[in-house]
Structures are given as C-alpha cells and as structure tokens.
C-alpha cells in the first residue's frame, strides 16, 4: 500500500483555530499518512517556540460562553478590555478539564510523527517576523513549494 498524503494550509492564528490543523495532521500521521502543513499569514503564529494564542468572543456568534452569555450578553461589551484574555483563560481551563490536549502537545506529536511544517517566506518578510522565534527545523518556502507536495496529495485542506 503506497502511503497516502495529506496537505493542509493553516491560515489562522487563534487558540481555537490552532486545533484543526494539528489534530488532523497528528491523526493522519497515526493512520500512516505522509503529512505536510503550510503555514501562511496568521497561521505563522502557530509556529512560535513560545505560543501565546488567544481566543476572542468578538464577532463570533457561534462561540458558546459561560452562563449562556452568548445568548444575552451585548456584542459590544465583548470588546471590553480583558474580555479576550478572560475568555482565553476559560477556554484553556475547559479544554484541560475535558482532556483536550494543549496546542503545544499536539504540535509536539506532529513533529514527533514527522509531519513536515513549512512556513510561508512571504509572510515572514511581510510582517518582519524574526525566524529565531519559530521552531527549529522548519522549512521556509512559497506557494510553489507547497504545490510540489499538495499536487500529489490525496487530501488537501484549507484551514
């Protein structure tokens, strides 16, 4: 059986959206897929050695909140200072209570399972990012680099 291939593009840099690429990639690797993730724009935040990802309730009507606040709490007030860090803290606690792995753990599992992580060079240049803040051993490349693998993939996802 030749190895199946999964290619993922990760474009989001928030705590909640960090999960899909790393969950799918680590699971695919466990199922025997050769897997690559291409991180572009805000997705680059997922490659920092020290992650500081947050989740925001602002402009997210689908986000369940404690005490059913998503149903009655005025949207404008979710923009108040401290709301984002409070929601982030609560989300992290909930995940821990429910046995959901941390983003760091899932990312480590991906690295252990030889999931290839590619950082978008253009984004690095665009935002003047310091690559020493990122994980060691990353590959830096552009769209063509991604297509080299994605063109042969069985599954290709944009997250």
């Amino acid at each position, binding site marked *: 059986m030749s190895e199946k291939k999964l290619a993922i593009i990760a474009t989001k840099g928030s705590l909640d959206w960090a999960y899909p690429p790393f969950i799918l990639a680590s699971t695919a690797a466990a199922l*025997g897929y050769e897997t690559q993730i291409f991180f572009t724009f805000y997705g680059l935040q997922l490659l920092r050695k020290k992650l500081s990802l947050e989740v925001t309730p602002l402009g997210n009507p689908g986000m369940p909140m404690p005490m059913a606040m998503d149903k009655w709490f005025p949207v404008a007030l979710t923009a108040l200072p401290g709301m984002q860090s409070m929601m982030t803290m609560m989300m992290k606690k909930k995940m821990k209570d429910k046995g959901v792995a941390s983003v760091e753990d899932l990312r480590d599992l991906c690295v252990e399972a030889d999931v290839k992580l590619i950082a978008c060079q253009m984004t690095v240049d665009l935002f003047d990012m310091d690559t020493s803040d990122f994980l060691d051993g990353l590959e830096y490349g552009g769209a063509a680099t991604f297509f080299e693998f994605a063109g042969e993939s069985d599954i290709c996802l944009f997250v």
Partner: protein
Amino acid sequence: MADFDQELDATGLNCPLPILRAKKALSSMQAGQVLHIIATDPGSVKDFEAFTKQTGNELMESKEEGGKFYFLMKKS
C-alpha cells in the same frame, strides 16, 4: 476477559489523544500481540473502528461497561 500483552489507560483523554497514544503503544509491540485500551471518550468507539480499518490492525473487541469503553486490538 481475553488475554492481552499491553494495556493503555486513555481515560479522561479526548480526541485525538486516545488514537495517538494507541498508535504509540502499538509501535512498541510485536505483530500478533494484543493491546487493551480503556477510554472514556464516547467518540473513541467509532474512532478505533476507523483506525483499525485504515491501519490493518484488528479490533478484536469493543465494549462499554459502566461509562467506560474497552477495546482489544491485535497488532497486524
């Protein structure tokens, strides 16, 4: 209960950790050996079925007892 060679306690863990831990445990085992897995994630029932189907390992048993899920998996 049938015999097994290794046990994995995945209680309290949520998707995809039970699968990932099982994969890790299997990789240290010999072909033909049996892994016993205990989990509390209800999603793990379907997930272990799918996992074995795709990896060629054999799911010998899958049962629920007292809110916990028990699996016997034979390494191919």
